[in-house]
């Protein structure tokens, strides 16, 4: 990545400029051509650094009012199988295997979104029952304390206080 790529990443961390042609607006800010902006976007995408330029929803306002983190202790040797099954559900947005720590025994984590907490509980308990998972827990979101996008580009005001 050259300096202009980093500047483009810095711009893309913010909201896209308003108007009918966001690439031209970015080109103007960076002092390069629109063609160059498009080529750099494609390059960042091809390298895997940029996943997409798109909308991030404020999901509490989009009808998916409830969300929870479900944690499971899969039976031995079945983590991959159960992880793939969870990942296939449209209610699951993120699913990870993680290292356990301290008294926390769970290793399989899934972020689950539903219209109500009851819908989430029903999904998780059915999943556990169908797959012979005896140890699991559902941690409902009680309060969003922070949600922001990663800042890859040093900016004043983002350093630890």
């Amino acid at each position, binding site marked *: 990545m050259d300096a202009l790529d980093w500047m483009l*990443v810095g711009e*893309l*961390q913010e*909201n*896209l400029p*308003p108007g*009918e*042609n*966001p*690439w031209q607006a970015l080109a103007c800010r960076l002092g390069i051509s629109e063609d160059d902006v*498009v080529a750099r976007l*494609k390059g960042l*995408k091809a390298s*895997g650094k940029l*996943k*997409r*330029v*798109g*909308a*991030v*929803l*404020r*999901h509490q*306002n*989009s*009808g998916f009012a409830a969300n*929870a*983190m479900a944690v499971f202790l899969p039976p031995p040797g079945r983590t*991959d199988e159960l*992880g793939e099954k*969870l990942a296939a559900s*449209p209610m699951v*947005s*993120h*699913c*990870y*295997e*993680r*290292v*356990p720590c301290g008294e*926390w025994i769970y*290793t399989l*984590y899934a972020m689950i979104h539903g219209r109500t907490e009851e819908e989430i509980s029903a999904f998780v308990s059915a999943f556990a029952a169908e797959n012979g998972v005896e140890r699991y827990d*559902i*941690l*409902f*979101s*009680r*309060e*969003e*304390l*922070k*949600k*922001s*996008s*990663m*800042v*890859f580009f040093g900016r004043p005001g*983002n350093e*630890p206080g």
Partner: protein
Amino acid sequence: MLPEMTMDPVGRKLVNLLQEGLPLEKDPYGILARELGVSREEVTERIGTLVDGGVIRRIGGVFDSAAMGYTSLLVGAAVPGEVFRDAAAFVNSFGGVTHNYRRSGPLNMWFTFASGDPGEIDGLLAALRERFGLTSVYPFPKVKHFKLRVFFDMEKE
């Protein structure tokens, strides 16, 4: 009333397309407009309404932090009520903390932390234990990811 209940079919499809990402080609809104069968002006107006109405949090770049050279971690902590606000403010003051939630259960604070400097996370965890007298502050590094995609299908039902 939830905004999705008032959204017409074009609005729902637009939200889905925007979540998948803008075409990385010239005239991205014109391409979306043709797909939706509306004008480019209507696409930009609708986007403005979705942002102003709070349905869309942000339209911008979504990056792969590992590909960018950052390591990330989930942290769960048991934080007593009397220090919860101060501990949350301390955690949130770190730029590498992108998400932080209060959750039900014994570990009641969960945050993600990403940094280009692996030593920074140890510093944060140690400071959190010392400043607020916490005993259960656990890092949960990931072993494998099965799914990492936030997509809410607005056209379902």
